C-alpha cells in the first residue's frame, strides 16, 4: 500500500478537533463529523480516520475530501444551543474557504519559531465545492440547531427572498428555482448534505449507573452488551425528552423552513439508526427522507465503521451524491 492520502493536522481555535488533509489535487469536499452526548472527536468515530485511507481502493471518493473531526466541550453540561453556536462559528471559518493554517505547519512552538517551513500546501483562497455534515446522537441535534440559527440570522437580516410574491404558477416555478439557486450560491452552507447517525432529535438519555456508562464510555465495543441489556433505558430517564421545548422548537423550525424553502438540502437529513438502539427515539422529521435501520448495531456502534462493517463509509458518499443530484 502507498502512503495514506491524508495527513493529520490540528484545527485552529477548536481544541480537541483535528483534520485529515488530502494530498489529492482534485480535493473539493469537506466532510465534518460532530460527535454526540459525552463523545469526542476520536472515540465516537474510532476507525473512521483509519479506514478512510486503508480502504481508499474500495472507496476512492474519500481521497478528494478533507475530513474534519470537530469536538465541542461540555456536551453534557452546556446547552445544545450554545454548542450549536460554536459549531456554526467553526462552519463559517471552514466552509467554503478553510483557514489557511490547516495546510501548513501551524503549531506554535516558541523556541523554534520560524524554523519550520510555512509554505501552504493549497493555493491561497482555496474553496470547497461540497460540504457533508455528519452527526452522531446529540451531535445531530447540534448540527440541526446550527443550521436553524444561521437561517434565522439571514432571515432577520432580510437575506431571504420572498418566494410567495409570484402570481402565476409558471412564474413561480421558474423564479423560485432561480432564486433558490442564487440563495445557495450566497449561502452554500445550506447546500450541505446532512447525514445523522442515531440522532437524538426526538429525545434521549439516562441516569444512574447506566448514565455513568453512557457519559463515560464512548467506545463500548466490549461493553456494548451491557447497554443493550440494561432496562434502565426507558423514557422515564430521558433528559432530551421528546416534546421538550428545545426539541419541539427545533423540529417545528426545521420542518417549516424545509417546506417554505424546499431547495436547501441541509434541512432534509438522512438518519441511520441501529436496530438495537435503546437510547434514542427512532424516527425522522416530516421533511426528512425515511430513516434507515441498520441490523445488529446499537447506539454507539452504528457510526463506527470496521473491517466487517464498512457501510458508514458508503453512507457518507451516498448522501453527498443525493445532494448533488437534488441540486
Amino acid at each position, binding site marked *: *500500500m*502507498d502512503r*495514506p492520502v491524508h*495527513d*493529520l*493536522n*490540528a484545527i485552529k481555535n477548536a481544541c*480537541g478537533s*483535528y483534520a485529515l*488533509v488530502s*494530498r489529492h489535487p482534485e480535493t473539493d469536499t469537506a466532510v465534518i463529523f460532530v460527535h454526540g452526548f459525552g463523545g*469526542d472527536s*476520536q*472515540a465516537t468515530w*474510532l*476507525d473512521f*480516520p*483509519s*479506514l478512510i*485511507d*486503508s480502504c481508499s481502493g474500495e472507496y476512492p471518493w474519500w481521497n478528494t475530501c478533507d475530513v474534519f473531526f470537530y469536538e465541542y466541550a*461540555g456536551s*453534557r*453540561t452546556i446547552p445544545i444551543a450554545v454548542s450549536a453556536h460554536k459549531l456554526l462559528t467553526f462552519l463559517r471559518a471552514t466552509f467554503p474557504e478553510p483557514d489557511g493554517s490547516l495546510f*501548513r*505547519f*501551524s*503549531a*506554535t*512552538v516558541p523556541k*523554534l519559531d520560524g524554523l*519550520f*517551513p510555512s*509554505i501552504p*500546501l493549497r493555493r491561497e483562497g482555496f474553496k470547497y465545492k461540497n460540504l457533508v455534515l455528519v452527526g452522531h446522537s446529540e451531535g445531530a441535534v447540534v448540527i440541526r440547531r446550527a443550521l436553524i440559527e444561521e437561517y434565522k440570522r439571514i432571515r432577520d437580516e432580510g437575506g431571504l427572498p420572498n418566494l410567495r410574491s409570484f402570481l402565476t404558477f409558471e412564474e413561480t416555478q421558474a423564479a423560485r428555482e432561480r432564486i433558490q439557486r442564487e440563495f445557495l450560491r450566497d449561502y452554500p452552507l445550506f447546500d450541505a448534505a446532512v447525514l445523522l447517525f442515531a440522532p437524538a432529535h426526538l429525545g434521549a438519555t439516562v*441516569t*444512574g*449507573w*447506566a*448514565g*455513568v*456508562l453512557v*457519559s*463515560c*464510555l*464512548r*467506545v*463500548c*465495543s*466490549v*461493553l456494548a*452488551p*451491557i447497554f443493550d*441489556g*440494561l*432496562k*434502565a433505558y426507558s423514557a422515564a430517564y430521558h433528559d432530551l425528552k421528546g416534546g421538550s421545548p428545545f426539541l419541539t422548537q427545533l423540529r417545528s423550525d426545521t420542518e417549516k423552513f424545509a417546506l417554505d424553502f424546499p431547495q436547501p438540502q441541509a434541512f432534509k437529513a438522512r438518519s441511520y439508526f441501529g436496530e438495537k438502539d435503546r437510547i434514542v427515539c427512532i424516527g425522522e422529521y416530516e421533511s426528512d427522507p425515511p430513516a434507515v435501520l441498520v441490523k445488529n448495531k446499537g447506539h454507539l456502534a452504528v457510526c*463506527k465503521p*470496521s*473491517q466487517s462493517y464498512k457501510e458508514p463509509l458508503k453512507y457518507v458518499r451516498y448522501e453527498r451524491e443525493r445532494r448533488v443530484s437534488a441540486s
Partner: protein
Amino acid sequence: MKENDEYRLLNLSYFASALLMPQLELASLRDLGAQFRTAKTAALFEVVSWLRLGTELAFFPEEHANRLLAGYLDEVMPPTPQAWRDLKGLLSEQVDVLNLLEARVGETLSVRGSSEQRFDNASAILPLFRSALLLGTRIATDSRARSFTLALGFLPDVPWKELILDCKIDPNQVALAEGVGAVDASPFVPELVYAGFFRALDHMDALRYVFEDCADRESLGYDVPRLRSRVLAIVGWRFHASGKRHRFIELVEKISVDMAAEMAARGEHGSPGSEAFRDRALYLMRYWNEEEEMIAHGVSASV
C-alpha cells in the same frame, strides 16, 4: 526538503499542537506533590516515545522531528539520574530503549541497536498508527483519566482504601464529575477517580478496538501485534494495571457490587449489567496488560 516532507510536516504540526505543547504546559503546573514527579516525567517521556515511533514509521519527517526534539530536549527528557531510574522502574517494558536513550540523549530519534522489532511494511501500518496516536493524545490530555492514573499508580495503600474503595459513591455525581471541564480540585476526589476509571476503560476499549479490527488483515502480517506492543509500551503505564492490577480488580468488584445493588433496587434482577461489566472490564485489563501473551509464555495471570 525531501519528497513528501511538506505533507508530513502537517502530522508534526498536529503532534506539536495537540500533544507536545499541552504536555509541556501540564508539566509546568505545580499541582502535584513530589511523589507524583515520576508521573510527570513519564508523561513527557511518552511524548518523546510517540515522536520516536512516528519518525521510525516515517509518519513524521525525521529531520524536522529531530529539530523539534532538540529544541525541547531539556524539558522532555528525565532531568536527573534519579529521574531516569524512577522512569525505568515505571516503564519496565522499555528499559532497553531507556538505557539507549539515556546514553545518547540528543543525538537522534532513531535509536539504532535497540531490541525493538522493525516493521515489514511501515506505509501500510500508517493509518493504524495515526489512529493510535490520536487515541494516545486523547488519553494524555484527559484530566479525569489522569486522576485515575495518579490514584491507581501512586496513591499509598491506606488512602487508596479509605478514600477510594470504602466511600459510598453516587453514580450521578460520577457522571457529573465526568462532564465538567478541567478542575482545580484535588485529583483524589473519589467521584473524579471513578469518572477517570470509566474514562480509562473507554480508552482501553478504544485502543483494543482499532487494533483488533486490523488483526485479521493479512496484508499487515505481524506488523499489527508489533505496533500494538510498541504502543502499549508507550501508554500502558497510565492505567498500570500490570503493576497495580489488584487495585484495578478491587475497583471493578466494588462498582460491580454497587451496580448490582442499584439494579436489584429497581427490580432488574435478570439484567446482565453488573456481571457483564465486571467480566468485560477485567478482559480489558488483561488485554491492556498483554496478559494473553504472558500466559502463552508461561507467566500466570489469573483473575
